């Protein structure tokens, strides 16, 4: 079929798809933008400059950065042993990594409450240590860690699978230590995927709501993250506050993912160019 010669049917399908995407995705985005600026830019800026909002944003950022750090280290490690190690139960480990995708965020928060809440299973261990998890920042951190776990692992598995093993063998033959091989041979090949995985994890962590609501309780000024702030503002009918925060969170998440996409695509282009040079 020549794609340039389109019948009426083809145009019909294109129109249907464009309309559907427009109504489903674009129109709501425009509605949010228009609604937030309904009372003027000044109102938005006042809302975003309020102490309560900045506290919530700061808590979200701290948690998200910490989650990204842990996930980068341990997520990559898990991806590594899934690809490179052979052991019994590997298939089970792989399916465990998928669990957070299919898990309701509310249930995630609830599971953590069962572990750390009043009469929690782990309370006999953590209480003597004086650590508070439920309705405190550590609980929010754990909930966010749970929901964002698959992103780094899933991003790194194909990249580690495609690593050029010959380079590692060559370095090993030449007497390089494992440490040197990792930093000089393996790490450079993982860098782009690491950045991409970190960005996805960060965006997911910032936007988490259900799990952190249940385990964190949304105590204003203490355990209120950005999403909980939006939820409470809506509840209290402070619409400008809710809409301004939503627009900031939404556009920030979209922006960082777009930038990561762009970096990834540029790198892929470089790689394919390098390969074509090699072939010549």
């Amino acid at each position: 079929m020549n794609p340039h010669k389109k019948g009426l049917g083809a145009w019909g399908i294109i129109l249907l798809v464009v309309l559907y995407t427009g109504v489903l995705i674009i129109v709501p985005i425009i509605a949010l933008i228009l609604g937030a600026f309904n009372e003027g830019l000044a109102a938005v800026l006042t809302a975003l400059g309020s102490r309560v909002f900045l506290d919530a944003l700061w808590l979200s950022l701290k948690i998200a950065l910490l989650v990204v750090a842990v996930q980068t280290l341990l997520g990559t490690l898990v991806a590594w042993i899934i690809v490179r190690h052979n052991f019994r139960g590997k298939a089970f480990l792989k399916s465990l990594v998928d669990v957070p995708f299919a898990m309701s965020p509310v249930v995630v928060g609830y599971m953590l409450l069962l572990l750390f809440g009043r009469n929690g299973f782990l309370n006999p261990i953590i209480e003597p240590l004086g650590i508070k998890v439920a309705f405190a920042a550590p609980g929010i951190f754990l909930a966010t860690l749970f929901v964002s776990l698959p992103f780094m692992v899933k991003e790194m598995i194909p990249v580690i699978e495609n690593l050029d093993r010959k380079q590692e063998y060559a370095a090993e033959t030449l007497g390089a230590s494992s440490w040197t091989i990792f930093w000089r041979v393996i790490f450079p090949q993982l860098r782009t995927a690491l950045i991409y995985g970190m960005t996805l994890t960060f965006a997911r962590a910032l936007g988490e709501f259900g799990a952190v609501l249940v385990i964190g309780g949304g105590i204003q000024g203490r355990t209120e993250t950005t999403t909980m702030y939006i939820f409470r503002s809506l509840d209290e009918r402070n619409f400008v506050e809710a809409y301004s925060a939503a627009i900031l969170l939404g556009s920030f998440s979209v922006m960082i993912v777009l930038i990561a996409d762009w970096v990834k695509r540029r790198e892929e282009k470089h790689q394919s160019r390098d390969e074509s040079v090699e072939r010549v």
Partner: protein
Amino acid sequence: METSLDHNQNKARPPELLLRASGLLYIGLMILVPLIVILQDGLRQGIGELIHQVTLPIARSAILLTLWTASLMTVINAFMGLATAYTLVRFDFPGKRVLNAIIDLPLSIPSLVTGVMLVMLYGPQEAIGRFLLEKFNIQIIFAKPGIVLALLFISFPFVVRNIQPVLQDLDQTQERAAATLGAKPWTIFRKIVLPALIPPLLSGSLLSFSRAIGEFGAVVIVAGNIPLKTQTGAVYVLGAVESENRLGASAVSLILIGIAFSVLALANLVHKRWGAHK
């Protein structure tokens, strides 16, 4: 690529064992332990109590609402996802790259923000929402259509992105032959293209269904949490946790986990058996 060095990997040296142990410990503590705890808590009073809890009127209606809104979303999403993937791969038109970029937006927009957007658009005080309510008596927010819309928004990429690569790699020789022999475009699509797309269509649809079962952020805002009317399973669990109804919370949680996991496993099975993409 099996080489002699690969075999050495099986005899792991101490530092490698340490790596493996820490990876396993991380996943075990983070994922396995919470799962075991909720399983234990849900079944503590026996299967009978679990069944009793999920068949209580409010819980049952919440689970059923979750199931049918997710099903309706999946049917619409399967159809429109297929049309969208086909359009993006097979047709050229102005704005195609923009359309392709828009498909991914739901993946990066937090689901709570999705809910806020839908309320601003279709809320009873907003222009469009009021218009639909007054002229056609259609209520979207704090009603079921809002739930389906929210689910459609968050799951739009799943089917499209599952089908796209398969369609891209599809050999068009057969289609050209059929066209030469005078087959109509619709016949070609139905007889040649569609059968090849069934596996990714099926696994993508199942994936979006499993994702929809647990959706909370977008739904809690558009649905408004009215028991027996707009309360979904995930929202029910929140209510049960807040009112310290531990039996109900654990029971409905287990049902949601059970449904979502089985559907996800089915999606993976379809993908592995028929959709394996070389």
